[in-house]
């Protein structure tokens, strides 16, 4: 299985277009949104600056790009082409493929997180009180991306062919916006804020925001993430088994 994980990582790194998209794009978007913002003024409803808030949002967004978009499209395509069938004829246990996909996606999501951090620190002078916050943020955003990797696997097994891209992007942009990854949810009207609270991307961003403020992640957000992981993971596993009947 390690060979498969290594190979999945190798070929992802070879896919220049994909790497560019997932590593450069979030950092570029960060500069577009936060580039002109004041580095001292606090965002309404929080005690953090926009560049800092957006740094966590865009790092999260970049991680989601790498794991969700990458996984769903690749899995749907590989199912269609019969590669998943071929792989089923090896000693690799069924979950191995899914594990390899999640693992390789996680390796790609790490640089995208780090690039956003580096750009934010260099260009917008983002600093924390303590160094541990950088490490904790990286760990939390990275670990949280597994939830979306599982969602990517589920979507890859749900949709085929032409349908997979629009479905992925609706989920991807919908979740990103609603979860407040592009703009703080504080600017949403109240009714939308009430919905956003339960969206996985919101809980995901909130994990990071708690650390930004120097605290530990809220239990509620962790619980929401775990619940979504169970939901997406369960759906992925169920769809994978169902696929055996029609593959």
């Amino acid at each position, binding site marked *: 299985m390690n060979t498969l994980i290594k190979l999945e990582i190798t*070929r992802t790194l070879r896919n220049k277009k994909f790497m560019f998209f997932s590593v450069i794009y979030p950092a570029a978007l960060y500069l577009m949104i936060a580039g002109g913002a004041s580095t001292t003024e606090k965002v309404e409803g929080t005690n953090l600056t926009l560049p800092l808030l957006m740094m966590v949002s865009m790092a999260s967004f970049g991680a989601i790009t790498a794991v969700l978009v990458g996984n769903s499209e690749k899995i749907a395509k590989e199912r269609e082409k*019969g*590669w998943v069938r*071929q792989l*089923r*004829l090896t*000693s690799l246990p069924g979950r191995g493929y899914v594990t390899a996909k999640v693992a390789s996606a996680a390796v790609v999501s790490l640089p995208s997180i780090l690039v956003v951090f580096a750009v934010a620190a260099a260009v917008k002078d983002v600093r924390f009180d303590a160094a541990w916050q950088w490490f904790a943020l990286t760990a939390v955003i990275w670990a949280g991306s597994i939830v979306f990797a599982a969602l990517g696997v589920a979507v890859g097994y749900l949709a085929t062919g032409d349908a997979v891209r629009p479905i992925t992007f609706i989920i991807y942009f919908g979740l990103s916006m609603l979860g407040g990854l592009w703009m703080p949810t504080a600017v949403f009207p109240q009714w939308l804020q009430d919905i956003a609270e339960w969206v996985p991307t919101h809980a995901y961003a909130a994990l990071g925001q708690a650390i930004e403020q120097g605290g530990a992640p809220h239990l509620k957000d962790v619980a929401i993430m775990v619940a979504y992981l169970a939901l997406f993971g369960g759906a992925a596993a169920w769809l994978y088994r169902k696929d055996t*009947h029609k593959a």
Partner: protein
Amino acid sequence: MVSFENVSKSYGTVRAVSDLSLDLYPGETVALLGPNGAGKSSTLDLLLGLRNADAGRVEVFGTTPQQAIEQGKVGAMLQSGGLMEDVKVRELVKLACDLHRNAYPLERVMEQAGITEIADRMVNKLSGGQEQRVRFAMATAGANELIVLDEPTTGMDVSARQAFWGVMRQQANEGRAVLFATHYLEEADAIADRVIVLHRGRVLADGSAAEIKAKAGARRIVFDLEGHIGEAALRELPFLASLEISGRTVRIQSHDADATVHALYGLGLYPRNLEVAGLGLEQAFIAITDAAAAEEAVSR
């Protein structure tokens, strides 16, 4: 070793496999022969656990197909299995070796499959025949007890095909069972110890290539007749499998050509341009499937 017990599989209203029962034994080389839509690929998919049967039981090495594969007892090569993209041939075959419980050395696998020269090429830049050889390498990455091949030589040229069957024979000589689906009848005839003819998801005939030929009428007799041809008398000939008259030419398939020809002279006829020839497996195959279709028409 492999056992199908009253296995059925339908896709919607189409019955791909219908109440199929068969057993395979260690060391056999078996051809699964049938026209398109006969249920060959479906049967192999069931055997490999890629699909689940609607009814009946499929057992491979005393366990489920999935488990037999996980234990590294079965290697398989699919007709159209896609390959991983953005990887080199060597990397992909190494993956197959690393995933196998009893893997052979990588270089040996590649050499046997004849892909050593293309080891550093990207998989998505290969020709159809080269891709097929990579699939073959993946199927033979380790010491399997059973090798399953679905129309393995599709897309290969003649020399590649010969090389392929050379390696396959070697595998069989090492005591491995080989099961392959094919529509190349010469292949079934030349390579298989046992031929299973499938038609509409059922086993139509099961035996050695010679037995299959015998079942369809082993010999073909062709001759011309002058004057009035008494069809009724010809139909009474002994060991007759089929009779066809076109113009002056009579074509007969017989289970015992000697006896049939002897009786022909016994009728007082004088056949001209008499030819007696063996039936190829191809004609035997057509004869068997035609007979089955006719039977089906009668029973309706």
